[in-house]
């Protein structure tokens, strides 16, 4: 069972990336990279081969669902945890159908995020 992982954070806002980085770092994870949109996420996934990706759903240019498809085309076993704002829960089904392994709704609480990441890393 893998507890700690090399993680790529994808979110178009610096604030959310920094928050997730802090939470994941406090849980002992290694943040290997950050991306601000879906295109960058796919490129960084290919380059860095992280153990897990946290992926914002609503982003400019290529959104999180499209980026998830792109990443799964490179690696069908990719572990991607989707992250979206409250009120966009209708995206959950679509994301899970597309292959997301977990789902986080903003705002979130650090201990629960770490629990979810641990579960997905161990799955």
């Amino acid at each position, binding site marked *: 069972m893998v507890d700690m992982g090399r993680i790529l954070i994808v979110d178009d806002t610096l*604030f959310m990336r*920094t*928050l997730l980085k*802090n*939470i994941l770092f406090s849980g002992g994870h290694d943040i290997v990279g950050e991306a601000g949109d879906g295109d960058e996420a796919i490129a960084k996934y290919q380059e860095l081969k992280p153990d897990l990706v946290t992926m914002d759903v609503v982003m400019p240019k290529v959104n999180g669902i499209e980026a998830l498809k792109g990443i799964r085309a490179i690696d069908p076993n990719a572990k991607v945890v989707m992250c979206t704002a409250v*009120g966009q*829960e*209708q995206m*959950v*089904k679509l994301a*899970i159908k597309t292959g997301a392994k*977990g*789902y*986080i*709704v*903003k*705002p*979130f*609480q*650090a*201990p*629960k*995020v770490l*629990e*979810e990441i641990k579960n997905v890393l161990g799955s």
Partner: protein
Amino acid sequence: MAVVPVKIEKNGKWVVGKIDLQQDGMTILEPLKAAIPYKSVIDLVEKKNLLIITAKGDPPTTYKIASVEKVLQAMKRFIAMSCSAYRLMAYFMSPAVRGGVLVTNATWEKGAIAVLKSTIWFVSQNKQVSIALKEVTSMELTKKEVQKNQVDVLKLDHMENSDVVTSYVLCPLSTLQILINFLKDATKDLEVTGEELDPLSAQVGMLIYSGMDSHAIENMLNIPHKNLDEIYDRLLKLGLAEVVLVRREVQLTPKGVRFITEAVKPPSQ
């Protein structure tokens, strides 16, 4: 129907006793010798392995009862289904989201919702969930996909052991509207008034929500302690936050400096 072992609070002390649970009421056999018809119960509050039952009267009588989960579960189900409360048959899903994380194995439970004086109870054959009204943080009517149809549901956000939890209620729209109106009225003290937070204060609020401490917030937002303190004052004044810990910063006295200097010297041979 069944006599079960419990602990009951009597005059501020916990004493071992027994309760006879029947279909329409329960009798505390010892040490209180009190009969409590379920329909006389006006409030039922759950705290860890403890139930606080308030029965009507002048003044109302409160009983604190502790027992094992199996016994409490039976009591909760009997009382919530028969007590003096606004009750409706509904489907509920609780928790659906916990701390921002989707509960992937959450399912709809068929049961009843009982709205009591200070608590809402979701009760099904296998599950009883209580939500204190003062812990309800938001509620809204929204749509959710159920068996490939978009249906109206009540989305309820509430605190549960310091986690923020989302639950859903599914029943006819007219009943949902009655429920939401009641909940809005019962939780009007928690309504956020017109005061708006500036973006930086809102970001601080979000970081507190996520569990960041002052040091992490200062580093993340790159703001000095004094500014963060001012923002905390604003949040406190608006009733949006409460003080849980006051941390001190100290500096060493000359005696302290001498102590540390001595302490780091290598041991003499």
